[in-house]
C-alpha cells in the first residue's frame, strides 16, 4: 500500500537528471521533496505520473507498476502554471474533470465548493486571463484534485502566493490528508516542510542524499545545536575556540552554535560555568531542516543546474 520509487535514472543529453533515486511514501503521508533547483524534483514527479519514462528503474503504487495504474490515481499541480487563457474558469475545470472521468454535474458542484473554500466564488464565470496569478494557481490546484486522486503531487505549490493564500492552501492540504489521501510536494520553504511534512527526501544532483521521517532526518545528522546566553558577555567569542564547536549566529536572546558529533553538548555548558559566567539560557536541540539541508547540499539556490523551462519571454533563440 505504498508508493515505491525504485532506483530510477533519467538522462537528458549531457545532464544526468536522476541518478538512481529510491524513495518510499506511505499512504496518507505528507511527503516533502527538497532540493536545489535542478536537483531532479520535477523529473521525479513527471516519471511518477508517467509523463516521462525513466531510463531504468521502476515506480509502483500498491504493488502495481505506474504504467498500469489508472490516471485518475494521480493529481498533479505542475510547477509551470498554465490554464486556457480565454476559457471560463468553471468551464475549464469541468473540462479537466471530464478528462479524468468526472461527470459534469458532479464536477460543477465540486468546483463551486472549492471556489467557495478559496473565497473566489465570483470568478466561476470569468476568463482565466482575467485572474491574478495567485488566483490562477488556486484554480490549478482545484483542477488537480477534482477527480479525487489518491496521490496528489505538487511542484512548488506555495511559490508566488501571499501569506493569506499560503494559509488557505495549507488548510486545503490538511483537508485532503484528512480524506486519507497521500500528498507529495516539492518546495524550498523549510518552515513549511517542518510544519506539514511527516517525511522528506533531500535530492541533490539526481541523488537522494538523505531521507526519512523529519525527526529522524534532523537527529541523524549527529550534530546538535546549543543555544547559550551568558550575563554580561553578549558576544561569547570564546565559544569558537572550543574544539568541535562553531558559532552559527548571534541572536538577540542567545547565541547558537553547532556541536560536532565527537563532542558532548553539555561540555559547552561546563565550559561556560568554568569561566565563572552566569548562564541565563542553555538549550540543546536538533539542527533545523534548513541546517540539515545546508549541511548536505550547501547553500540553498547556489548551483543553478535546472532543466526547468525558462519563461517564454526569456526565450529568444
Amino acid at each position: 500500500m505504498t508508493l515505491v520509487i525504485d532506483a530510477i535514472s533519467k538522462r537528458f543529453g549531457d545532464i544526468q537528471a536522476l541518478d538512481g533515486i529510491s524513495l518510499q511514501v506511505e499512504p496518507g503521508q505528507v511527503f516533502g521533496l527538497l532540493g536545489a533547483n535542478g536537483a531532479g524534483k520535477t523529473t521525479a514527479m513527471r516519471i511518477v505520473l508517467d509523463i516521462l519514462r525513466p531510463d531504468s528503474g521502476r515506480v509502483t503504487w500498491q504493488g502495481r507498476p505506474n504504467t498500469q495504474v489508472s490516471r485518475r490515481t494521480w493529481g498533479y499541480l505542475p510547477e509551470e502554471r498554465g490554464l486556457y487563457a480565454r476559457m471560463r474558469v468553471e468551464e475549464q475545470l469541468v473540462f479537466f474533470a471530464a478528462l479524468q472521468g468526472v461527470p459534469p454535474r458532479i464536477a460543477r458542484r465540486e468546483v463551486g465548493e472549492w471556489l467557495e473554500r478559496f473565497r473566489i466564488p465570483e470568478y466561476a464565470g470569468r476568463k482565466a486571463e482575467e485572474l491574478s496569478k495567485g488566483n490562477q494557481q488556486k484554480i490549478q490546484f482545484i483542477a488537480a484534485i477534482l477527480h479525487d486522486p489518491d496521490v496528489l503531487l505538487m511542484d512548488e505549490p506555495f511559490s508566488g502566493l501571499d501569506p493569506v493564500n499560503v494559509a488557505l492552501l495549507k488548510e486545503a492540504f490538511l483537508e485532503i490528508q484528512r480524506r486519507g489521501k497521500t500528498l507529495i510536494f516539492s518546495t524550498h520553504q523549510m518552515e513549511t516542510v517542518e510544519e506539514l511534512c511527516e517525511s522528506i527526501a533531500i535530492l541533490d544532483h539526481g541523488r537522494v542524499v538523505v531521507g526519512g521521517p523529519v525527526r529522524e532526518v534532523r537527529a541523524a545528522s549527529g550534530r546538535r545545536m546549543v543555544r547559550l546566553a551568558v550575563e554580561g558577555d553578549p558576544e561569547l567569542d570564546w565559544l569558537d575556540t572550543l574544539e568541535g564547536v562553531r558559532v552559527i549566529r548571534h541572536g538577540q536572546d542567545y547565541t547558537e552554535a553547532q556541536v560536532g558529533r565527537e563532542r558532548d553538548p553539555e561540555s559547552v555548558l561546563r565550559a561556560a560555568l568554568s569561566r565563572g559566567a552566569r548562564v541565563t539560557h542553555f538549550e540543546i536541540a536538533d539542527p533545523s531542516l534548513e541546517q540539515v539541508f545546508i549541511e548536505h547540499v550547501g547553500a540553498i539556490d547556489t548551483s543553478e543546474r535546472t532543466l526547468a523551462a525558462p519563461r517564454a519571454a526569456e526565450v529568444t533563440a
Partner: protein
Amino acid sequence: MRGLRGLWPNAGYIARREYQARVRGRSFFFSTLILAVVALAMGVAPVVIQYLSQGAQTRIAVYATSSDIPADTLQVLDASLFGASSVGDTPGTRRQFQLSMTTDLAAAEAQLMDGKIDGLLRICRLPADGSMPAACAVGGASAGSGQASAAPGDLVFGYQADTTANGRQVFFVRQAVNTLAIQDRLARSGIDPQGQSRLFAAASLSFANPKARAASGGTGAGGAQSDEDQVSRVLVATALIVLIFIVVISYGTWVAMSVAEEKSSRVMELMLSAATPLQMLSGKVIGNGLAGFTQYLAILVAGAAGLLLQGPVADAVLGAANGAGGPSVTGVTVPVLLAFGLFFVLGFALYALLYAAAGSLVSRQEDVQQASMPLMMLSMVGYFAATFAIQGADAPWVVALSFVPFFSPYLMLARLILGSVAPWEVAASVLLLLLTIVVALWVAARIYSAGVLLYGQRVGIRKVLAAARVAR
C-alpha cells in the same frame, strides 16, 4: 501501445473544447464573414460584370447623305464592330456598340453635343471629280489615309466623337467602315453577296494532339468529349484541387497553432497528466477539422446563395430578357463529389496530424510557420503536380503519383475528373492513404509526446528522434 487504449471519450472532450475555442474566437468569426462575402460576391459577379459593361455601351448614330449605300450597311457595321470588340468577352455580354440610322443630321449633332449619343458616323459616296463631299468632311487631315486611296464612286466616311483620333473607339470604327467599303467595292465589281461570303469564308483547319490521343485509351470518361465539356472538367478539377489545398494549409495551421498555444500557455503539462498524447492529437485534429468544416459550409452556402441569386439579380438589374443563361457544369457527378469528400477528409487528417507534430516542436506560436514549412512544401508539390496533371491526366507520372499518399488527394481527384480511372485504383489509393494516416498518427504521437516537454531550445530532428525513442 498504451495510448490506443481508451481513445474515447477523452478525444471527444478535447475535440469539443478545440471546436468551441476555435469557433468562438474573433478571428474565426471575421475570416468566415469575409470569405462568405467573397463567395457571395463571386456567385453574383457575372451579373455585375454584365451590368457594368452595359453601362459602358457606345451609342453611334449613322447618317447617310445618299440613298445608294448598301442596304445592309447597319448589319455589316454591327457585325464588324461586335466581332472586333468582343474578342475575349464572355458570351452573353452585351454589345459594346449600339448603332442606329438617322435622317436628321442637325438633331443628331445636337444629341452628340448633349451626350445622348457617343458618336456620329456620316456615309457619303465620292463623286466622279474625287472631291470630298461637304457632309462627310468633318475634320481636316484626320480622315487622311482612307481618303487618299479612295477612288471616285467609293464610299467615304466622316466620324465625330468625344474621343481621341487614335483611341480604341476610332480604331474599331475604322475597321468597320473598311469592311463596309470593301464589300461595297466588291458588289460594284459584280460579285454578289453569295460570292462575297464564299470569298470571306474561313479556311478549314483540323487540329489534333497526337500525344494526348495516344494516352487516353478511350475507356471511361476519357473518351469522346466535346471541347466545352473538357473546359468545364478542367475548371471543376482545378476548383476542387484548390479547395483541398486551402483546407490542408489553413486548417492544418490551425492545428499546429493550437498545439503551440498549449505549450506557450503551459497548460500542456496539466493536459499530459490527464490525457494521453494520442487522445490529444486525435481530439485536436477532429475538433479543428470540424471547425474548418463549419467555416467551409458557411462559405459554400454563401457561394450557392450567390449563384441562386444570379437569376433574380439579373432580372432586376438587366431586365428579364437579359438574364444570364445558367452555366452548364459537366464533370461534377455523384462519384466525383463522394471522392472529393473522402479525399478532402483523409487528406486533411494526414496533414493535420503532421502539423500537430510540427506544432509540438516550437515553444511559441510565432514559430509555427517556420516549423510547418516542410509540410507546406509537401502540400505545394502535390498541388502543383495536380495543376500540371490537369493538362494530361493520364500521363504515367500522374498515374504513379496518384497512389502516393501525400499527393493522392490532389492527383487521384484530378484523374477521376479528367482521365480514366478504374475503381480498384481509387480503392487502392484510399487504402494507402488510410494506412499512412495510421502510421502518421503513431509517428506524430511520438514526436508530440517528446516535443511538448521540450522548451526554449531549437529542436533538431536528432533531438526529437532521441526524445521520441524513450517517450511513452
